[in-house]
């Protein structure tokens, strides 16, 4: 447990601890990991020191999304069990200097991580980073409780689907009064919303009633960048990349609007409106 501070950081040990934010959703596959990678990248590009913690022990994925899978040598449980120092386990991002990843163990199970040890680990990270983003596993069991235990803030990711909203509703209940979670509506398809075929952001938040951090469209670019292991937030010129930067600014306390998705109509949609009157 006696660990040396890295030499580069000897100059200033911050008196103020960083913010530990858990990114959660209940349901799997809604984009928690992609969101964590992109928000972390955007925050780091603002100059903040950011640690990303993959709390999905047994199903490690954050390293893939960040393109760091070949560089991970040690993981979270190695640190918790004392075999490896934090410095050896933290993997620096390829793209952003101040972004570091602490990977999950792939060959272990969530139950093997004691909650107090997880909380203590997050505390140690808060001493060295401005932001500690914890990528929560799906589900509401031990892994969820571990991911939430050390965090002071929560961001919930929800897709505009009945099942996802239901699960987020449950997660909000489990988070309890300790958190006032912020909401990211992910994978919105504006054309479907416009045609009444998808729940709108307003529909989702009429139920969840959370402060909206932002809306991310269901864009092929997210899939493409994830394939490559290059978070889309690296590209500020991309609309979705810019949305992650706007959310990062909001998290950092800037008074900016929550990014939304433009409700532009497709050519065929406009054609339909032209023939059939304003829908």
């Amino acid at each position: 447990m006696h660990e040396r501070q890295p030499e580069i950081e000897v100059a200033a040990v911050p008196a103020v601890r960083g913010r530990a934010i858990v990114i959660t959703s209940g349901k799997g596959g809604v984009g928690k990991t992609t969101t964590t990678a992109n928000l972390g990248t955007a925050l780091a590009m603002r100059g903040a020191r950011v640690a990303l913690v993959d709390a999905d022990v047994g199903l490690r994925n954050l390293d893939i999304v960040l393109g760091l899978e070949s560089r991970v040598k040690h993981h979270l449980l190695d640190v918790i069990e004392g075999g490896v120092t934090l410095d050896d386990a933290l993997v620096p991002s390829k793209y952003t200097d101040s972004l570091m990843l602490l990977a999950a163990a792939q060959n272990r199970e969530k139950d093997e991580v004691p909650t107090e040890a997880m909380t203590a680990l997050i505390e140690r990270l808060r001493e060295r980073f401005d932001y500690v983003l914890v990528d929560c596993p799906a589900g509401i069991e031990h892994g969820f409780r571990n991911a939430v235990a050390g965090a002071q803030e929560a961001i919930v990711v929800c897709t505009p689907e009945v099942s996802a909203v239901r699960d987020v509703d449950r997660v909000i209940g489990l988070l309890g009064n300790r958190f006032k979670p912020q909401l990211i509506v992910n994978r919105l398809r504006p054309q479907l919303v416009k045609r009444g075929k998808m729940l709108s952001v307003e529909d989702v938040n009429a139920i969840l009633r959370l402060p909206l951090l932002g809306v991310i469209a269901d864009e092929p670019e997210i899939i493409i960048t994830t394939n490559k292991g290059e978070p889309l937030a690296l590209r500020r010129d991309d609309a979705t990349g810019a949305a992650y930067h706007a959310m990062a600014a909001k998290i950092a306390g800037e008074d900016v609007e929550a990014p939304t998705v433009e409700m532009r109509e497709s050519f065929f949609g406009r054609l339909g409106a032209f023939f059939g009157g304003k829908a």
Partner: protein
Amino acid sequence: MIEFFKRLFGPSDSGATAKQRLQLVLMTDHLALAPEMIDAMKRELVEVISRYVEVDRDKVEVDFERHDHALAMMANVPILGVARPSERAPEPAPAPAPTPAAETAAPLQQRKRRKKAQRAPA
């Protein structure tokens, strides 16, 4: 022709269906997660009805039934006896009639408040 395009591109209601299903499933979820609330409601319900008629308290049943588009509370309250109108115990002061505006704005809250108002003088 217009109808054809409307059907092809016009608004469909599957989003609305999703919204409705979501609202219903969440109501059911919230009820399932709050059994103590249902017990408390049952007790108060029996208490209110007992002021007017004699109720078989042990046989009161309160259930929630889910239909396709709505959630309904079904209460089965066996009544053992009803007093002759002249023998009826003096009733507690009637609750002040709610203003129609308040009634439509928040019917549920209004009802709860009225129940409390009736209990207070007893």
